[in-house]
């Protein structure tokens, strides 16, 4: 019987326990690659670097408190690195964002599906809320979770209209 690929190794459906140490720079870099891949997969014309500070804020916030996502982040970093190393980046991105659909916790039974449900899905939500929505609708100005700046700027925070 052949050994399953790293990302197909079975895991229980429950969240992975966090390690004692914080995320390493290497892990954060791998996770950033996973985040940037969202724009690549959906052909979204957006300067992803502009989203990095909010993404890091999310990562830091979810690496403390309950539940602590560091165990899942570590796993996702390893999975993405293994996928890229083995399949190349385009195929790795397709593997995660196209081929692996996980919408319920009970479906997260392998390293890959854990990475998708607990990490990549949240990265998608973060991507959209922090500005990615504009890549779908360029004229859109605001979205739930987006910090658009004071409403007393010269321009309104949302697309507006006037009553005729």
């Amino acid at each position: 019987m052949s050994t399953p690929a790293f990302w197909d190794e079975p895991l229980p459906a429950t969240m992975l326990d966090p390690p004692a140490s914080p995320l390493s720079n290497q892990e954060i870099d791998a996770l950033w690659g996973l985040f940037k891949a969202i724009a690549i997969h959906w052909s979204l014309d957006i300067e992803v670097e502009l989203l990095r500070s909010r993404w890091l804020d999310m990562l830091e916030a979810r690496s403390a408190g309950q539940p602590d996502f560091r165990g899942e982040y570590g796993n996702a970093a390893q999975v993405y690195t293994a996928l890229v190393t083995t399949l190349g980046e385009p195929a790795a991105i397709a593997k995660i964002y196209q081929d692996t659909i996980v919408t319920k916790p009970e479906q997260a039974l392998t390293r890959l599906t854990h990475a998708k449900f607990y990490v990549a899905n949240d990265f998608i939500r973060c991507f959209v809320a922090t500005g990615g929505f504009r890549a779908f609708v360029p004229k859109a100005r605001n979205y739930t979770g987006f910090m658009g700046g004071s409403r007393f700027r010269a321009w309104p925070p949302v697309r507006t209209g006037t009553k005729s």
Partner: protein
Amino acid sequence: MSRDFDFILIGSGVAATLVCQRLLEANPLASILILEAGERIPSRDRRSWWDLVLARKTPYSATYDDDSTKSPAQESFSTGNVSWGFKESRVRAYGGSTMHWGGWSLRFKEEDFQCRSRTGRGADWPFGYDELEPWYALAEQILAVGGDASDEGPMRSGLYPLPPYPWSAHEAELANGFDTIGLKPGHMPMARFKRCVTTGTCKYCPIGARYSAQDHLDALLFDPAHRNLGLKTSAPVRRILADRNLVHGVEYFDAASSTFATAHARQVIVCAGAYESTKLLLASVSPEWPAGLGNRYDQVGRYIVTHLLFSVEGTRPANPQSLFQEYDFPTLMSRSWDTPQRQAEGKMFVFNNRALPKIEFENLMIQGKTRAQIDQIAGGPSRAGLSAFIEEFGDPQNRLTLAPGTGKFGLPKTRVSFSRRNPERFLAVVSAAQDELFKCLAALGYSRDTQAKADPRGDHASGTCRMGLSPDASVTGANLAVHGLDNLYVCSNAVLPNAAAVNPTLTLAALALRLGAYLSAGASQ
């Protein structure tokens, strides 16, 4: 442990906070103890906010009532011919329901203060709108309400402190449809500070822009000038202690020492929301008050009302501009059905369904939709919706009572019995209004899709300690003092004689400021 205070305030929401502010403005050294049954749930916590954005979780959801009939821990019960909803209707924590409210801040109108005289239904207030108007203006300043003074509404002595939010593109289009059914569009007055950055996560604002009593009360507590102001959380009050017409303190559970404690005060103000304020009076039984404080005439708990929320939705085949819920809170509203002409049947307050049109890109991506599919959905069929509150009238047969046992936070369980005497007629009025609202959507090319009437829900529960001149038909007087007692006050939605058509928070804020001034004047004498 017992100690003398000038004032004990029970509850820590907007009412307690504003009463406290007025008392401290008059005397910064006033000795005030605030007792809150719930815990402190930190506001502006980054993790909690990200949990809301990513997982739609809120940090205070565990404080909500458990009203499930399948739950062994059920603590809230509904009887009568109308199901009364408790779910997610109040936050029991430091800051009260301002931890989760949407910030809508509308004044009642002049006719709401004379409901019975005008319609034969409900009750009259013991004073008119003119008496409360300056307090409304002050409340709008403190809560930082943005609105348009030229919109329909009651008489105003001045402008709003902040300008209104501009309508979104979708709402501007809906406003055009309002003409079809004679509605004049207006801007929802919102209690948000200047620093609002429109995240749409008002249920847990990351920067404290939407008014929260917790942030406000923290500022009062942290002010070194207020050295005699104290707060205890996890301290449910079990009984108010009284001898004849004077209260002398309260008995509460002190979580820190896991014992019952007594605190004495010259004045006690119950600011514990409609449910807990009422239940506390009922529970405060003594030989002189066998049915509970202020309850010689069996009025405490009666006349409970809230708002029924009804809605309509329509669909049209294309959304060429890919409009979606950019604010995620409504800024379009109308008070054209909130008029004296409609008062006898129940006035209505109309507003945009803030969640529509809905395009949730993240969900489409998580479901594996391709870019082309998402683009097609974004420009494809879209939905719009209008919602409304309708006023109902206090009926003595409808009442809030104590249910046996205690629930979360050591508070007594709650029972609401709510029935409509003529449900068919009432629901016919609602259906007719829904038909009218559909005409507005139809004028904009939407085809009729769904309509809904929600069960009455406790968010706006009121009337159970209503104000009035006569102790045999009310519980509190014009200055919110409980009839028959010289130093006990209720300051919560419980005191409102009528529900009117709009949510009660701004009215409660005005009453709290007025009460604080009244108590300060009395204290100074």
